[in-house]
């Protein structure tokens, strides 16, 4: 039976980091869905310095790549999911672009087309697929914290993959030179976005990867600084607190000198107050330095990311 396949050209970006066990199964299922539904598509695997045989595993499948083009971007060193996926999106040529943040498919493959159709039929420029249940405690803490304090009333949740229209990619790139955290940038791009939630079919087991763990905590900090109001509030509270402490100290001094006229224990209290004020100033300075370093990263870096090679996998 010949089905009417979509005329739209789609690109699928797949983030790969030490996934030699899962990558083959994932690509097979992905290609199954895309071949059935699209006349032409491309797959771009972004390898973020895998230490195992992930790249080998992809190349082993080259005989199955008959109806499509599969490319591998090798990142120059470990740069984390955000920059790697940005590189993939920059290379893609599709009218619609799927971003697969993980190769662990804890959903039915039909969800891929459900997300695509939701975008096309309902007119959402970005549609994400998000698991209903989140097992990782650190993730739960981060998201609840983030959503409470986020600017622009953003609500984020852990997502496994999403689809972007070319229009939304152009919009996002005209908003920002580089994209530190895609989800937050997509959420505030001003176009219509939506999320489809699903019940995970399998439990994700935790993989220990020190580079990834430190990357994630760094990313969480950066995200909070850039996209929530917390640092701003904190700076305000500390600055006004310190001011208040200093004014209070001055008044107290006046009282001591002209009022009571006695000593030693008072000085101890005074030093305590001064220390608190200074402590607040130092914290503010630290936050300002963090801001500056982020701005430095966003504005002055010539290259958004560093890649080693781009390779089309030949049959």
């Amino acid at each position, binding site marked *: 039976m010949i089905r009417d396949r979509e005329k739209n050209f789609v690109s699928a970006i797949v983030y790969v980091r030490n996934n030699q066990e899962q990558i083959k199964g994932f690509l097979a299922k992905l290609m199954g869905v895309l071949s059935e539904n699209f006349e032409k598509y491309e797959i771009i695997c972004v390898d973020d310095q895998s230490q195992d045989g992930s790249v080998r595993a992809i190349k082993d499948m080259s005989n199955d790549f008959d109806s499509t*083009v599969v490319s591998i971007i090798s990142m120059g060193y470990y740069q984390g999911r955000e920059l790697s996926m940005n*590189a993939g999106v920059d*290379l893609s*040529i599709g009218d619609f672009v799927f971003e697969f943040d993980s190769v662990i498919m804890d959903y039915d493959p039909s969800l891929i087309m459900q997300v695509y159709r939701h975008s096309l039929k309902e007119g959402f420029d970005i549609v994400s697929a998000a698991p209903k249940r989140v097992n990782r405690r650190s993730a739960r803490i981060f998201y609840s914290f983030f959503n409470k304090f986020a600017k622009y009333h953003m609500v984020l949740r852990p997502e496994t993959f999403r689809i972007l229209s070319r229009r939304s990619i152009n919009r996002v790139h*005209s908003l920002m030179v580089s994209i530190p955290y895609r989800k937050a940038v997509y959420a505030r791009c001003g176009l219509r976005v939506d999320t489809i939630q699903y019940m995970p079919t399998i439990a994700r087991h935790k993989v220990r990867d020190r580079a990834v763990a430190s990357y994630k905590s760094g990313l969480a900090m950066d995200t909070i600084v850039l996209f929530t109001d917390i640092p701003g509030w904190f700076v305000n509270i500390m600055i006004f607190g310190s001011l208040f402490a200093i004014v209070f100290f001055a008044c107290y001094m006046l009282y001591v000198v002209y009022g009571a006229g006695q000593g030693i224990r008072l000085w101890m209290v005074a030093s305590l107050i001064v220390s608190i004020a200074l402590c607040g100033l130092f914290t503010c300075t630290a936050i300002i330095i963090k801001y500056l370093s982020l701005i430095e990263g966003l504005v002055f870096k010539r290259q958004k990311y560093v890649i080693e090679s781009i390779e*089309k996998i*030949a049959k």
Partner: protein
Amino acid sequence: MQPDKKIRSYDKIVIGAGLYGLYAALKCGRMRQKVLVLEYDDGPFKRATYINQARIHMGYHYPRSYATAIKSAGYFERFCKEFDFCIHSGFKQVYATATNFSWTNAAQFRRFCAAAGIMCEDVDPNRYFNDGMCDGVFLTQEYTYDAIVLKESMLEWISKVPSVEIVYGARIASIRKADEHFELDVANEGTVASDFVLNATYASTNQLISRMGYEPFKIKYELCEMILCSAAGKLNDVGITVMDGPFFSIMPFGMTGIHSLTSVTFTPHKTSFETLPTFDCQKKSLGTCSPEQLGNCNECPSRPETAWEYMSHMARKFMKPEYSFDYISSMFSMKPILKASEIDDSRPTVIRRHSVNPTFISVLSGKINTVYDLDEVLTI
């Protein structure tokens, strides 16, 4: 071979009737040498000489290889003067460096052009390209040649030189070294001999070298597709090349009035890393192609499906919509690529003397205007 048939001998035997082969034949013929050209196809210029972007290289393509660039620029003028009748120069040739993934950025390209002494004028990127796609856009001086017009003239010139003979559809049954000369048994032609054989077969070069037992070139093979498109609108008198990375080029194709489109990623369909070109499509070629003898990819029954969707999407992602183009047809050819040249992306002309007295020379070059590299080996 019939024993009574006489061996015909020539001053030079040239194998392959592409530009390099015919250039050599003409040059030697004009020096009153007796030359035989053996061509496998039923006509000249049926493969790489015709099926490529028809670019007369000025060196812009090689910003990481000054040597290649300067050499191209040097030959550019000479070629344009000698072959001016087949050259189309009345269009704007635009080179651009992409914002992402380019191995060369705008400042580096400017510096490179200044060093190589070739024209490079800054143009506003937003004139041709979508916002943010390219960080540098340059108006350059580069032309395109028309292979068909060139072919007609070459044949006319050769027809005036009676000592040059061309055999089309030539099947070389065997080739061997005999004392001071080489003997070739050619089906329907008998045995021919010469003390000078020039292998100008491009993609088949290793196939011939292997038959002689000489050391083959270290090359890989790419089965390439070039697309012909109509570009009636604003693109009509513009050629655009986004260079040095996984990008594309769309530019006028000789004097035909149509454009050629290629892309670094999607033009090569299949790759072979073997010494001899080995591809799975050869099994479906109905016996016309094998690792020992390449058929003509453009006429092959197992030509690949076109990558038009991929190439056009890439070009449209970069170019503004008013620079529109439409599909006409696809052409396929086999390209040998020297393995050593991947890092600096250079495209040297390699001339190898496998044997001296008798002389057997192979020439391998990917550019049309470096044909003059042949001069040094022909005049000896």
